[in-house]
């Protein structure tokens, strides 16, 4: 067990190092002059060349790649995300504020996704191939095909503009979270429904189930104790991917609904070429990913210990 966790942690460390290095290299070698972008963002005006050079020196952009990378990673290892190139303020407190906006939205989206997909998949699989099942599959396919930004705009048009039921922009009241959460949640629901549906159908086809029925085990108990765990395995497997979908969705949704949060934070930081902020978001995302995947690995082994046995 200790060996297993150690190997998983080692894998996580490799992924994190790779993510940090790749982000830094991509930003460093991106075309255009970052110093100019930072200077414009800082002074909100066209700036003379000597000011741009000054910014370049201040932001450490004239250094060698590896020197700059070390200057960034060194403090990061002890939890220091550095200062914004534009404002000079520490990145971490701002990041925490943004997380406090994004986390509830992401969770609300996830909960809506689960609350929609689980009953939908269950109802659909009661009679596979029936009209309910076909409707569910059609809905899920359409839902998966609609990009978040378009769905968000449609929801704004319908509920905010036409009907005037819900607010669309900003975060003033709790009601402001409904439309963005719905935009996120419906996307999650679409992909989860398809996975759950096929998972349940596959689980119902397990060769041992008829014997359980002949043994007199009630159908309700078979569904709960044997079908559900087998159907959960593919869902747990794709949960990591689902998280990627969720993060991507959050960035779009926050921009569409003019909400503060990690998404809008990232977009404005990229526009200003504010490297420390961009890198902070990317590292944070990478850590989140690696942690979730680590947990999934462990849950997976708890659900189906055969996986661990095969590795050994």
């Amino acid at each position, binding site marked *: 067990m200790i060996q297993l966790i150690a190997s998983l942690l080692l894998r996580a460390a490799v992924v994190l190092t790779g993510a940090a290095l790749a982000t830094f290299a991509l930003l460093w070698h991106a075309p255009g002059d970052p110093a100019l972008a930072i200077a414009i963002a800082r002074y909100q005006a066209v700036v003379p060349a000597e000011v741009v050079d000054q910014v370049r020196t201040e932001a450490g952009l004239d250094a060698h790649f590896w020197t700059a990378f070390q200057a960034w990673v060194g403090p990061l290892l002890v939890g220091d995300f550095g200062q914004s190139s534009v404002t000079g303020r520490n990145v971490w407190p701002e990041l925490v504020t943004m997380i406090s906006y994004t986390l509830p939205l992401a969770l609300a989206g996830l909960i809506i996704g689960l609350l929609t997909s689980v009953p939908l998949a269950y109802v659909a699989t009661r009679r596979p191939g029936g009209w309910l099942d076909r409707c569910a599959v059609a809905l899920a396919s359409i839902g998966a095909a609609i990009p978040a930004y378009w769905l968000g705009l449609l929801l704004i048009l319908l509920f905010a503009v036409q009907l005037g039921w819900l607010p669309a922009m900003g975060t003033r009241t709790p009601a402001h979270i409904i439309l963005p959460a719905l935009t996120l949640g419906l996307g999650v629901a679409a992909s989860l429904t398809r996975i759950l549906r096929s998972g349940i159908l596959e689980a119902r086809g*397990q*060769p*041992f189930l*008829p*014997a*359980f029925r*002949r*043994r*007199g*085990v*009630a159908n309700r*108990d078979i569904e709960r*104790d*044997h079908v559900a*765990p*087998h159907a959960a395995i593919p869902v747990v497997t794709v949960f990591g991917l689902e998280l990627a979908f969720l993060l991507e969705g959050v960035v779009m949704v926050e921009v569409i609904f003019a909400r503060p949060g990690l998404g809008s934070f990232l977009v404005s930081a990229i526009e200003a070429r504010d490297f420390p902020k961009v890198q902070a978001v990317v590292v944070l995302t990478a850590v989140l990913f690696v942690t979730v995947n680590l947990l999934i690995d462990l849950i997976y082994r708890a*659900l*189906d*210990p*055969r996986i661990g*046995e095969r590795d050994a």
Partner: protein
Amino acid sequence: MTITATGLCAIRSGRTILHPTNVDIRPGERVGLVGASGSGKSTLGHALIDRLRAQGQRVAHVPQSPDEALDPLRSMAFHWREAEHALNLSPDPTRRQDLFAALHIEGSDLNKRPWGWSRGMQQRFVIAMALIGTPDLLVMDEPTSALDSVVAAGTMDLLDAYLSDRKTALLLITHDLGLAARRVNRLMVMEDGRIVEDAPTEQFLLAPVTQAAKSLCAHRNWLELPC
């Protein structure tokens, strides 16, 4: 009470797999159901189980392979509890110990999942589980074809010993006449979804009547087999 089921039949996608069939089995009787693959043996077994269950009789089933009887994600202990619960029995450690002792699987780790046990042990566990409620009839569908012949013979011996002083009747479904001949006192032969011959074992072996029975006897040097 004699076990009786009449008019058992099965039709799958327009094809009759099992023509209307009546089955009578006396308490404690050992009956073999033999026939070639696809003759409808398993279908008759399933139809019989479903009918008897519907009639409120206690009937237990042992499928061909433990893979068809056990959920790989659940522990052996879970399976046992579930089987007791399905029969509305309260958990009884003594009953479990007796059955485990009878089938020589005592001392095994019940917290393991099926694949943590050998297949022979799994199959004996399934048989033990089938005997929990002391059923009127135990239907075994090719119970030993997933085991090697030595383990299979051992398992059948243990079951014979356990059933010898009980009223539980046995229906042994197999294509292996050698296995059936040693274990049962009456043989039924199936062909194309019908029971074509039904006779005491000795009479059957000495003077098979139908072509299906004759070919079964001819194809098996049944006395040479260990089980």
